[in-house]
């Protein structure tokens, strides 16, 4: 190779900060179209060397020669064709993306004046767009102030600064710390493209993978000296690492290589993990929104069901009311019409029987028929009572239940004991009727299924607006696997009827087996007329 190939000659550069020596005579050469990799530990002086070559700080001693001419300090490296990609981006926060990419390289008019030009933003925007497209950088807008960009985006802007103008030498000061691995690979392909175009690259890096991938020649900087200089093809990672850390013992070296390698591998892995985490988070967000949609649908359906349910309850309430009224009408008709008719027939028969013209055997027949009619009247009266407890309208719930229980006891032979709150008072008619029907159905249930000999009914207030009815028998109790729905399927409507009525009243039904055998039905229903007696009991000051 002839000397004329040499693009940059760095001769015995010395630099120290105060008493701290950083570079102690660095000499190197870069040829045109060559990629020179410089490795070295952190603090070996890489950044200082890069800054000196880029003309950002003067060396204490030594000189730089570009294409055979010495660069006198201070010089503007960019004007000489030397571009720098710094370790971390140095940008003007108050300028937008285009402004930063072209800072110091603005296109403008009149082009002959350096500082007095008026910038041509449109043209610069186009070129900036191209440069960012080359990098495949995703930047929201060229008008965005770089202060609002992420560190990686800022680094990409800093790299784009190098792309807008041809350079002879590009100094790259390990900018990969801020770049994710796709952009790191992008940078490596850029370096190769530059080499193909004949641009020299001075690539400062710690990443041996990167250096071995693109560098034609490797230099190792340690403690301010170049300690190794070799074509990349003629060396191994072990040798380079040995030079970087300054050890030659292979046994001690291996762990360091491993550490170095695994450091970068770990970084890559961490990055992949982060990426996957982001994907997962996105997934999760999607799922969450799906779940929210489902929940919303569900709540809509619940609302619809609720509405339907309420309509159903309302319908049932009306049905029950109408049934009660129908029963009442029926009972009155039976009572007022049939019974009166029967009674009048009976009187007519009596008159007929006492007539002297009737022969004796016929009288006996008539007398038997009258007996039958009386039995019939009693029976119809009982039916009337079942249809409409005769006392409930006039004397109230307590009296109705008492009378019904007496009848029932006579009819069934099961002993009934009653414990009715003395201050029951009068409740609204639908509630009284419902409660009466509950007791009625409860007792029927006992009679049909319980095989009990005793029933105890208790009606009392648990609070001024809450009435509790308990029906306790000493019978079989409920089977273990009792279930209201199953009971209804088997045709046992008694308990189901109770539970429906309780639900319509907005109350609570509990069914449980008593410890000594037998079923306990407990019903609690609210009602709108507070019991004065209970109120009095609750306020002892009165």
């Amino acid at each position, binding site marked *: 190779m002839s000397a004329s190939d040499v693009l940059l000659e760095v001769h015995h550069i010395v630099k120290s900060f105060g008493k701290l020596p950083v570079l102690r005579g660095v000499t190197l050469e870069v040829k045109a179209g060559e990629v020179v990799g410089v490795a070295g530990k952190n603090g070996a002086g890489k950044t200082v060397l890069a800054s000196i070559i*880029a*003309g*950002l700080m003067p060396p204490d001693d030594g000189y730089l020669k570009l294409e055979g001419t010495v660069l006198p300090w201070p010089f*503007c*490296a*960019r*004007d000489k064709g030397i571009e*720098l990609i*710094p370790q971390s981006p*140095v*940008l*003007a*926060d*108050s*300028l937008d993306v285009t*402004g*930063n990419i072209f*800072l*110091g*390289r*603005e296109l*403008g008019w009149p082009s002959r004046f*350096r*500082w*007095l*030009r*008026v*910038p041509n933003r449109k043209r610069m925007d186009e070129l900036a767009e191209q440069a960012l497209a080359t990098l495949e950088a995703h930047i929201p*807008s060229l*008008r965005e102030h770089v202060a609002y960009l992420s560190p990686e985006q800022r680094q990409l802007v800093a790299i784009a*600064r190098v792309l807008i103008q041809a350079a002879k030498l590009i100094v790259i000061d390990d900018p990969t710390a801020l770049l994710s691995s796709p952009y790191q690979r992008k940078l490596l392909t850029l370096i190769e493209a530059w080499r193909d175009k004949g641009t020299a690259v001075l690539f400062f890096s710690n990443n041996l993978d990167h250096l071995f991938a693109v560098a034609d020649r490797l230099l190792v900087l340690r403690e301010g000296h170049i300690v190794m200089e070799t074509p990349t093809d003629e060396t191994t990672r072990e040798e380079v690492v040995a030079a970087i850390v300054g050890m030659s013992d292979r046994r001690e070296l291996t762990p360091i290589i491993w550490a170095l390698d695994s450091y970068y591998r770990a970084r890559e892995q961490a990055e992949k993990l982060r990426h996957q985490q982001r994907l997962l988070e996105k997934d999760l967000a999607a799922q969450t929104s799906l779940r929210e949609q489902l929940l919303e649908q569900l709540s809509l359906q619940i609302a619809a069901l609720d509405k339907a349910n309420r309509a159903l309850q309302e319908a049932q309430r009306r049905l029950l009311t109408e049934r009660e009224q129908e029963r009442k009408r029926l009972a009155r008709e039976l009572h007022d019409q049939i019974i009166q008719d029967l009674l009048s027939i009976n009187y007519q028969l009596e008159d007929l029987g006492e007539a002297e013209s009737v022969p004796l055997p016929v009288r006996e027949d008539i007398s038997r028929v009258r007996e039958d009619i009386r039995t019939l009247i009693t029976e119809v009266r009982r039916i009337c009572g079942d249809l409409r407890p005769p006392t409930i309208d006039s004397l109230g719930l307590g009296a109705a239940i008492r009378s019904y229980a007496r009848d029932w006891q006579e009819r069934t032979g099961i002993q009934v004991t009653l414990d009715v709150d003395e201050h029951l008072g009068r409740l609204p008619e639908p509630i009284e009727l419902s409660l009466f029907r509950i007791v009625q159905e409860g007792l029927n249930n006992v009679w049909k299924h319980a095989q009990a000999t005793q029933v105890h009914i208790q009606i009392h207030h648990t609070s001024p607006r809450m009435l509790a009815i308990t029906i306790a028998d000493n019978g079989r109790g409920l089977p273990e696997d009792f279930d209201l729905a199953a009971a209804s399927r088997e045709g046992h409507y008694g308990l189901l009827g109770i539970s429906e009525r309780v639900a319509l009243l907005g109350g609570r039904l509990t069914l449980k087996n008593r410890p000594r055998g037998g079923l306990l039905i407990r019903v609690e229903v609210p009602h709108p007329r507070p019991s004065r007696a209970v109120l009095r009991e609750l306020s002892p000051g009165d």
Partner: protein
Amino acid sequence: MKDTGPRRIRGVRRILNAREGVVLLLFFLLALFLSVRTPTFLSAQNLSNVARSFSWIAVVVLGESVVILTGGIDLSVGATMALAGLIAALVLQGGHPVCLAVLAGLAAGMGVGYVNGTLVGRLDLPSYIVTLGTMSVARGIIFVLSRGWPVRNLPYTFRVLGQGYIYLNALMIPVPVLILLVLTLASAVLLNMTLLGRYIRLLGRSAPALHVSGIDIGGLKQFVYTFSGFMAAAGGLMMTARLGVAAPTAAVGYEIDIIAAAILGGGGLTTGKGTIWGVLIGAGLLHILRNGLVLMGVHPYWQTGIVGAMLLAAILVDSLPLKTREQHG
């Protein structure tokens, strides 16, 4: 353009809460107060005087505000004004033509500015020390050149710069006001349209980015201080022409007014913000404050103190909302 909508709204909002708006409001309040409290403030004579002296103060404030924009300060403007005036007067006394005198005066101002810029820009010395030094040096040169005596009997061809009128139909425009207009427009173009203006705005906060971009920061500073020296000299010439005498003690203590006006209207130190119009409004406020203090008969001993307090208040107010903004943003 996708950005125009929000940007326009932001623009309107900026005018409403920007310092320019506040300073303008203060300006009108003070003017109203003075019109009511003093019989003379609104008189044609006083307004004309105020407009003339405002012109040369405002020219200097423009130069100073550019220095402050870059995060520096120029304490030598007062002495530069006096020096430029004196040198022009001495050249006139030697029988040379007016244009030569003006050029000599401007050159003297730019010379002082260039020295400032070189010391600050090339040697990285702190601007307040450097300009404090050049202030004394310039004042010393003035006393040596004038031997302590004012230079009088300046020709009318020179005094026209401060006292003359240009007649536009029925409109009588004072020459200093015209000069102010021209220099303001030139400064606005320079600061807002050229790359130079862009770099100057970045100098205060983003100097490393300029450095890495290969922009000659030292050269920029040299320009900025030379510009300030030039504007101070222009103001000094207008002042000397107006007064008709170049006194060695002229413009003593003007620095404080000028810096206060620049900070009041142009934004605090190192913000890189601030507009030419804001600076003019700041200068106007400070000027009618001075005028008002005189008209109200406030003792001169008090006046400087009040202006200084105004400067401190401006910096204080400037620093408060910035902090809260950073907390929110």
